[in-house]
C-alpha cells in the first residue's frame, strides 16, 4: 500500500474468515484506515491482490466489483451521514437504490434499523441535530440497511464515552450473533478490541508490515513481539 510513492505497508497477507470479528490494530499512522480503504475497494493496492471468496477485486469488471462492494456495510469514523437527508432518508436511500421494495416497506425497514440501534423517535432529525454518539449509531443503522455480508467499522469507539463505547461493542456482538455477519473493525481502543475481537492483525508503522496475527487475548498472552506487547499493555511492558 502506498500513497504516491510513499510506502505505508508492505508484505501484508491475511485471511478473514466468515463469522469472525476481525480487528485491524496498530498505532496512529500505521495505515489501518488505508488498509480498510483497500479492503473496501475504494483504493487500488499498489501491488498485490484482494480476494472476496474467489473474486479478485481488481481483476473483475467494475460492475462485478460494485456488486461485491454493495454486499459490504461500512460505518465511517464520524458517521458520514448525508447531511441533507433525515436519518430515515439516510437509511432509505440504499434501499431505494438497490431493492424494489414499496415505500411503506422501506419506511418500515428504516424504522426497524433505527430501532435496532436505539434511535426510534429520531427518524425526522437531520444529522446536524443529533449528538456524535447518535451519529455513530445512525451510521451503523445505515450500514445495516442492506443486510450486508461483511460489516466494516472504522474506529467505532473513537469519540465515545466509555459507556457508549461499551454499548456499541454490545451492539456489534449481538448483530454478529444474530445475523452471523462477518465484522472487520479498525480500532486501537484496547477494552473494545479485547471485548469483541476473535481474530486480529497488528500493523507496525516502524517496520511497515504486519507483525502479529491472532485473537487479541492470545496475542496478549503469547505474542512476544515488543511493539505488540507495548501496545496491548499501554506501554506498561511486563517483559
Amino acid at each position: 500500500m502506498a500513497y504516491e510513492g510513499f510506502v505505508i505497508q508492505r508484505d501484508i497477507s491475511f485471511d478473514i474468515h466468515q463469522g469472525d470479528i476481525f480487528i485491524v490494530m496498530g498505532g496512529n499512522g500505521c495505515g489501518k484506515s488505508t488498509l480498510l480503504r483497500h479492503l473496501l475497494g475504494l483504493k487500488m493496492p499498489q501491488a498485490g491482490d484482494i480476494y472476496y471468496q474467489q473474486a479478485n477485486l481488481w481483476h473483475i469488471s467494475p460492475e462485478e466489483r460494485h456488486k461485491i462492494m454493495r454486499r459490504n456495510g461500512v460505518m465511517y469514523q464520524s458517521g458520514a451521514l448525508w447531511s441533507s437527508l433525515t436519518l430515515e432518508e439516510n437509511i432509505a436511500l440504499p434501499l431505494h437504490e438497490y431493492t424494489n421494495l414499496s415505500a411503506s416497506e422501506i419506511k418500515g425497514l428504516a424504522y426497524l434499523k433505527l430501532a435496532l440501534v436505539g434511535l426510534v423517535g429520531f427518524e425526522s432529525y437531520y444529522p446536524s441535530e443529533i449528538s456524535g454518539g447518535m451519529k455513530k449509531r445512525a451510521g451503523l443503522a445505515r450500514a445495516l440497511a442492506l443486510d450486508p455480508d461483511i460489516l466494516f467499522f472504522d474506529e467505532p469507539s473513537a469519540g465515545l464515552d466509555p459507556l457508549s463505547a461499551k454499548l456499541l461493542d454490545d451492539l456489534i456482538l449481538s448483530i454478529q450473533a444474530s445475523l452471523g455477519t462477518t465484522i472487520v473493525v479498525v480500532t486501537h481502543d484496547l477494552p473494545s478490541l479485547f471485548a469483541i475481537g476473535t481474530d486480529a492483525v497488528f500493523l507496525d508503522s516502524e517496520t511497515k508490515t504486519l507483525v502479529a496475527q491472532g485473537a487479541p487475548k492470545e496475542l496478549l498472552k503469547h505474542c512476544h513481539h515488543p511493539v505488540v506487547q507495548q501496545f496491548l499493555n499501554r506501554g506498561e511492558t511486563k517483559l
Partner: protein
Amino acid sequence: MQECTLSMENNIDDSLLIVVSGDWMMGNVTPQLSDVLARLGVLNRHKIQIDTALLIGWDSRFVLFIFELQAYCAQENIELDLQGVPVAAQDLLKQVSAFPVRESGDKPQRDLGLLARLGARTQKISRQSIAVLDFVGELCLSLGRFLRGRASFRGQDLALMIQDCGPNALGIVTLISLLVGLILAFVGAMQLKIFGAQIYVANLVGLGMAREMGAMMTAIIMAGRTGAAYASQLGSMQVNEEIDALKTLGISAIDFLVLPRLIALVLMLPLLCLYADFLGILGGLLVSMSLLDISFMEYVTQTQSALHLGDFIAGLIKSCVFGVLVAISGCMSGIGCGRSSSSVGDAATSAVVSGIVCIVVADASLTVIYQMIGL
C-alpha cells in the same frame, strides 16, 4: 429465489397458526402485513403462533414482518408466540425492543399562522440588518487597527490572496471584457449605421466600458469567483472550528481572515477594472475595423477625444466600492456559516447572490450621484 408464501390455519385451541415458507428476502415479493390482517379476522383470537419450518432464507424483510405483527398484536392485546421464529431473528427483535422508546415520535412541527410568519420574517430581517451593521462595525475597527499597524495577519496570506484575486483572474477577465466590448460595438454599430454615424461606436464603447461595464463586469466576475471562494473558505473553517481556535487564542477572526481578503480585493479590483476597460475598447476596435471600415487611427483618435480622465476615475471609484461589497458579502456569509457541510454551500450561494445584488444597487446609486455632482 423461491416464492415466499404465507398461509393461515386454525389450531385446535382456537389459536391461529401462520405458516411462512420460501425466501423472505428483500429482493422478493413478500405478503404485506396489511393484506394478512385483512384476511385474518383476528378480532376474536387470542393467540397467534408462527411456523417457519418451510422458511428457506430470510433477512430484514422477514424481521420487519414479525416486528410489525408484534406491534399489531401488542396493540390488539393478542398473545404472539415467537417460538417458531428462528432464534437469530428472535435475538434481533429482542435487540430492537431493548432500547427505551422515545415518547414523541416526530420532531415538533410548528404550524405558524400568517401573522406569526410575518412577524418572524420581520424579526429575521432586523436581526440580519443588525448582523450586517455589526460586521461592518467590526471591520471598521479592524481597519483602524490596521492603519495604526496593530492588526495581526500574515503578510504572506495577503500576498497569496492578492495573487489569487489579481493575476489568477486575468484569464477570465480578458475573455469576458473583450466579449463585452465586442457586444457593445455590435449593438451600437447596428443603430449608428442608420444615421451614418458609425464612428461614434468608439464613443459608445469607450464611455460604456470606462464608466460602467468595465467596473461592473469585473466586479460580477469577482463576486462569482472570489466572493464564493471566500465564503466557502471561511465557511469550512467555521465547520472545522478553526475560527473558534483563532478566537480562543485571542486573535480576531476579522483581523486575521477578513482584513487581508478585503485589502486584496480592494487593491486588485481597480487594476482588473482598468485592464478590462482597455480590453473592452480593443473589442470595439476589432468590430469597427472588420465590420464598419473604420481605420485603426480613426478609432483611436475618436476614442481619445471622447474619453477623459474623469471617466476612468468614475469607473475606478466604482470598482473600489464593488471590491468592498464583494469582500464583505463573501466574508460575512463565510463567518456566519453554520456547522454542517451543507451550510458551506448555502454560504457560497448567498455570498454570490448578495454580492451581485449589492453591486448592481451600488452601481445605480453611484451613477445617480455622479450625475448630481457632475463627474
